[in-house]
């Protein structure tokens, strides 16, 4: 605990994890709001705009929390990870700078118009504001994922004589294949989060028997989009992401699977507990040869185990990495099944009468949050012990002048701030839900 590195890592991991609870919903909702506004424009039916109006209010609260929890992340590069910033600023400063210039200005300029501007703007103008927010938030996502991708799989750089890492090819860096795959995977996952939240709202209203028109609409939009995007998050994007890990971070793959021994026909571990001290998985249930196929495309491929690599290159937290990956993949599968059932019943016209499934949809809204959090944990724990893979170790990236006491203090400060933010968020979101969807004339919609 007296080690500053421990506190630096805890602070970044904690603040980034908390922050990402909000943008994953706003990025997903941004697309759903665009879809709802487009349906409203096309059909001229007010119910789509009523639904959009409700979700824009939820979006606004989450966006505000996302902005204020995002600011400290940008600052931590300089405050806590000074050496990392000094060494790589010439490269990652590009994407972080572009995020401000191209994404944040766009988002901040149109946010007010989306939230407060429906009456001032024409329907097309308000649709335009929704489009601008979608574009802005998804652009912002790209610049952040591209920055992370450089840390996972550095390309387009050169190591200068003074040891700093400098930009060599802008396009190679910006269009890093890792960034393209990770971006698709991440954005699609955010739409899954949005869809599950929308579907859960529809299920909640249906079960309570209120706002029935809106409940139906939310259930339909939520489960159709949820089904499509739950599949896309696994195939092809999750699959491609796995193949990239297998190719460029084979040690991380071995740790994710808790695989110690190398060999062909590697089995996929479904369940089991890693025992790192004894180099084995306890109580395993394995599907033979499937890991070889997933990682390299043939059932007979050799998949290297951890023992093949020097121990100082192993990720430090193999247990957490293993569980994060299995939780993500397990929940991902469950979400496809759940949304598949919902769409099937929707098609048969029985979804709003099947109460067990409505309960499941309502209670399942945390699943995508857990899965994305676990997914980022896989990415970040898997990258260890490197800060920039193969180039800079995490231990060498921290600020040399900041001690453990200072960092412990700010970490605790964040813990306090986030507790307060969580309470406020719950209170305000609870009020919005109690308030329900409202038509343009200020009356409740679809009261039965």
């Amino acid at each position, binding site marked *: 605990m007296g080690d500053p590195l421990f506190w630096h890592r805890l602070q970044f991991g904690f603040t980034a994890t908390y922050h990402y609870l909000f943008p994953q919903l706003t990025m997903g909702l941004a697309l759903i709001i665009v879809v709802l506004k487009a349906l409203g424009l096309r059909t001229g039916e007010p119910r789509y705009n009523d639904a959009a109006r409700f979700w824009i209010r939820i979006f606004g609260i989450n966006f*505000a*929390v996302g*902005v*204020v*929890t995002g*600011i*400290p992340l*940008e*600052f931590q590069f*300089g*405050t*806590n990870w*000074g*050496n990392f*910033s*000094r*060494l*790589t*600023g*010439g*490269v*990652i*400063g*590009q994407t*972080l*700078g*572009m995020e*401000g*210039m*191209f994404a*944040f*200005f*766009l988002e*901040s*300029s149109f*946010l*007010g*118009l989306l939230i*407060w501007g429906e*009456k001032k703007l024409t329907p097309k103008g308000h649709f335009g504001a929704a489009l601008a927010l979608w574009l802005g938030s998804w652009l912002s996502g790209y610049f952040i994922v591209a920055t992370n991708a450089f840390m996972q799989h550095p390309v387009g750089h*050169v190591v*200068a004589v003074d040891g*700093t890492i*400098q*930009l*060599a090819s*802008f396009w190679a860096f910006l269009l890093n294949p890792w960034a393209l795959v990770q971006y698709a995977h991440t954005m699609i996952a955010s739409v899954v989060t949005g869809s599950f939240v929308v579907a859960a709202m529809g299920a909640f209203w249906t079960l309570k028997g209120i706002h029935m028109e809106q409940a139906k609409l939310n259930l339909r939009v939520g489960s159709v989009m949820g089904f499509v995007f739950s599949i896309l998050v696994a195939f092809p994007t999750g699959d491609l992401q796995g193949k990239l890990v297998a190719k460029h971070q084979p040690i991380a793959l071995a740790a994710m699977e808790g695989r110690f021994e190398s060999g062909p026909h590697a089995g996929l571990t479904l369940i089991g507990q890693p025992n790192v001290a004894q180099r084995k998985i306890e109580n395993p249930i394995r599907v033979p040869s499937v890991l070889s196929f997933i990682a390299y495309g043939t059932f007979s491929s050799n998949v290297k185990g951890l023992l093949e690599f020097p121990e100082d290159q192993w990720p430090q937290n193999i247990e957490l990495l293993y569980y994060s990956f299995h939780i993500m993949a397990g929940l991902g599968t469950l979400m496809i099944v759940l949304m598949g059932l919902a769409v099937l019943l929707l098609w048969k016209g029985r979804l709003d009468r099947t109460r067990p499934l409505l309960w499941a949809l309502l209670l399942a809204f945390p699943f995508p949050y857990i899965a994305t959090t676990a997914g980022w944990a896989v990415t970040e724990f898997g990258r260890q012990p490197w800060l920039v893979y193969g180039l800079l170790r995490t231990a060498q990236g921290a*600020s*040399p*002048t*900041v001690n453990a006491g*200072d960092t412990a*203090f*700010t970490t605790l*400060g964040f813990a306090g*701030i986030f507790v307060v*933010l969580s309470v*406020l968020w719950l209170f*305000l979101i609870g*009020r919005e839900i109690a308030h329900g969807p409202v038509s343009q004339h200020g009356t409740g919609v679809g009261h039965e």
Partner: protein
Amino acid sequence: MNELWFWLVSAMLAIYVVMDGFDFGAGILHLLVAKTNEERREVLGAIGPFWDGNEVWLLASGGSLFLAFPKVLAAGFSGFYLALWLLVWSLMLRGISIEFRSHVQDGLWRHFWDGTFTVSSVLLPVLFGAALGNVLRGVPLDATGTFRMPLWTDFRLGPHPGVLDWYTVLIGLFALVTVAAHGSLFLAWKTEGPVHDRAKALSRTLWGLVLVLWILASYATSMANPAVYRNLPRAPLAWLATFVFLGGLAVVFLGLRRERYLLAFLGSGAFILGLLAATAANLYPVMLKSTLAPAFDLTALNASAGAHGLRTGLVWWLIGFPLAIGYVIFLFRFHRGKVKAAGEGEGY
């Protein structure tokens, strides 16, 4: 290229101060100019569409500093560790205050957020001003290119000062009064009725204070860092900037006398922009001065990223900057005219 990036980063920071300055100013004066809930919603409605975008100038300046002068960003941010987090937490509190206040129609709820909005709006310019004071006075950078500074020592100047000493506190106060005066003109321009009248009355007092503090701060700077004025004869840009800020100041008083508050507001923008530009021109090429030895100074020449990165950054910067300016113009045009408190649930 290095010199160009020095100016681009300085320009963005100066624009940030002018832009976020007016909404900080509105926050500082919030409780003084607006007494009723309707009046306070008028103040928040005036800055509501702008404050978030104004803050983006800070993030965008930070991004530009990161890509062009990573060593300055790393040394400065980690050296001012605790002070910087106090600043970031104030930014967070302020954002939440503005955004959450309107959600609940309850007197106590709104009084609470009015209070946090004002407190954070006062703290922020003091902290930013103190940061500028530290840049002007210098910090104990050593051969490793890093420094560590306590929040305060004995409040005196010297080779081992604290983040706060009498000089940086003075600059902090100067910043506080200046953005309050800047904000009072914005409110006088954008509002009418009692809020307008109170902002108008306050602006005269505040601009008198600005004059006094400006003279004090300029004199104190010659004690904290005598080299600043030594550059003056060799820096034509500093002369130009001096001309801009003196002109801006004259326009402020002209606008105040004729009761033309848009004019006065533009004048105060020019005053802040010119003053910061003159400061940057006098400091060039030093970005972070060492109080230990001039050889340890971080400058635009020894702290920059590689040449290819700087050239590449310039290409997208030249695309992004006009876009950002375009959004600002669009927002001001869309929200032109006097602000009126929106209906409950339809605005801040």
